[in-house]
């Protein structure tokens, strides 16, 4: 109570005298406003700003284990980039990254869309089933990787046990260089479906029911209604889901390291896991940083698209 009184007194004091005091108070106000945000800004600068700059610096240096003891990292110009681009693995990882991303997104989105349309029909238990669907999304990624590694095990995994019932010979899902990438993409699709379904479902909920009623009068039902009403109405949600999906898929490391470690014979190595291998397995931090920067450039290209769509969505 007393503090409120003091506050009132201050208020009275400054209205009566005004002038410099008021300006000082306004400046104080301005500063307190920034104080709310300042710690977050510092955190972002230290943990996002600095690493991005440091990565660029590192990619131009010969930065190895020795650097941590001697503190010496000689400048080598674009040598790291030359080594990375000259490495035949670069093309391999680039192609793998492309296949992994496109494969994951196409099926995550397709199946997610299908399930969202399915759940929109409100049948008994639909709400309950839809919330259970979130479970795979909430598990720690590495726990999911562990159980999938076990399911896909060649000798006694559940999938081969199941296929065996139909007389199929054990399939070397994670051991064969020609199958491993497909298996890893499959697991990543499984991971992405709950997220895609949830977001697309909420997008569908926002489409006014009257539109469908009006369209039904004109004979637009089923697929026709989908193409002429649903799709145009949720287009911005769709673009957000896809762009966000691409950016998040480019980041994936946990699942691949857990399932295959990038093998066999680098058949599941992507830019992200290759950057990890260079920095933290071979301790070639310079080259790891160079690969990371390639990854950043690709991600930021999509980020720009994302912000553009988001902004357009906000304007609408």
């Amino acid at each position, binding site marked *: 109570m007393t503090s409120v009184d003091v506050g009132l007194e201050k208020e009275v004091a400054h209205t009566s005298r005004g002038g410099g005091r008021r300006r000082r108070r306004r400046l104080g106000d301005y500063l307190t406003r920034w104080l709310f945000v300042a710690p977050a800004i510092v955190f972002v600068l230290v943990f996002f700003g600095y690493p991005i700059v440091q990565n660029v610096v590192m990619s131009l240096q010969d930065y190895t284990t020795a650097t941590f003891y001697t503190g010496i990292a000689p400048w080598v110009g674009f040598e790291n980039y030359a080594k990375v681009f000259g490495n035949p693995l670069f093309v391999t990882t680039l192609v793998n990254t492309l296949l992994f991303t496109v494969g994951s997104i196409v099926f995550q989105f397709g199946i997610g869309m299908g399930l969202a349309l*399915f759940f929109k029909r409100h049948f008994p238990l639909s709400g309950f089933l839809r919330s259970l669907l979130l479970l795979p999304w909430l598990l720690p990624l590495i726990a999911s990787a562990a159980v999938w590694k076990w399911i896909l095990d060649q000798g006694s995994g559940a999938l081969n046990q199941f296929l065996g019932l139909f007389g199929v010979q054990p399939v070397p899902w994670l051991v064969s260089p020609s199958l491993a990438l497909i298996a890893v993409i499959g697991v990543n699709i499984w991971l992405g479906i709950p997220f895609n379904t949830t977001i697309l479902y909420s997008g569908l909920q926002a489409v006014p029911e009257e539109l469908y009623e009006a369209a039904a009068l004109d004979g637009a039902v089923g697929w026709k209604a989908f193409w002429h009403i649903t799709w145009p109405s949720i287009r911005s949600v769709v673009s957000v889901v896809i762009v966000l999906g691409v950016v998040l898929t480019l980041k994936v*490391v946990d699942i691949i390291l857990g399932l295959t470690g990038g093998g066999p014979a680098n058949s599941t190595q992507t830019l992200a896991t290759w950057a990890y291998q260079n920095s933290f397995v071979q301790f070639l931090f310079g080259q790891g940083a160079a690969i990371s920067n390639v990854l950043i450039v690709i991600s930021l290209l999509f980020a720009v698209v994302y912000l553009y769509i988001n902004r357009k969505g906000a304007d609408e």
Partner: protein
Amino acid sequence: MTATQTMVLPTGAPANRRRYTRTWPMTVLGIIFLAIMVFPVYWMINSSLQGNSGAATTDWFPFHPTFAGYEAAINQQLPNLVTSLIVALSTVVLTLVIATPAAYGLARFKMKGMTAFVFVLLITQMIPTIVIANALYALFNDWGLLNSYLGLILADSAAQIPFAIILMRAFMASLPQTLVEAALVDGANNFRAFLSIVVPISKNAIITAALFTFLGAWGDFLFALTLTSTPQVRPITLGIYNYLGANVSQWGPVMATAVIASIPAGLLLILAQKYIAAGALGGAIK
């Protein structure tokens, strides 16, 4: 409009019953879809209860359940579980302390620099974690934060703070301005108005942010992998990964550990469902 009404209205009850008989097959189909999606979770639990998983075959159902897997998991992973709990809880505290005022500031004071900062926050969500880990390794080496709780807590908080801010800001921007202004007129300063009015009203948004921060820090794998290398500070995710590195011959303990590591996710899904759904949407669209 009238046509659909006349079609629906007079028929009444029989139409209703017909609609239900048509929708029950949908429920069956829904259960089948869900069974496929949740099968890995079932298999995880099923295998964790069969001590000899990995030998010849695993039964489709734990007919002779044994807790040997859990015993082994607890024996080997208990310290790692404690580490995960310490890191995740501390991360929640640090993240909320920093993100809640920031979310409020960004929602209420629309100054020029702040709009730019919101954009920066969105961009941070796109930065691959491996990029951060790469540079943080060098930084933490200088600061002596490798293999430390503090290092992991800082890195995890950094990863979670932008999302937490984005999530809470969306809610706080929808609060009526008059609430806070009334308090300001009564002489409370901005901080006091924030603590006594904004925080209590925003309870749900803050809980949602806390849940997601916890899940994110609890499930963190890449920072644990890159910023720690000693058994003293080793989260449960790294414990699971270390099992996977070697050729696994006994899946019982691995799956038991995975089940234990998944308990927070399961609990949240049961106890805090509305928060989870809200968070999923908030993060993607706002």
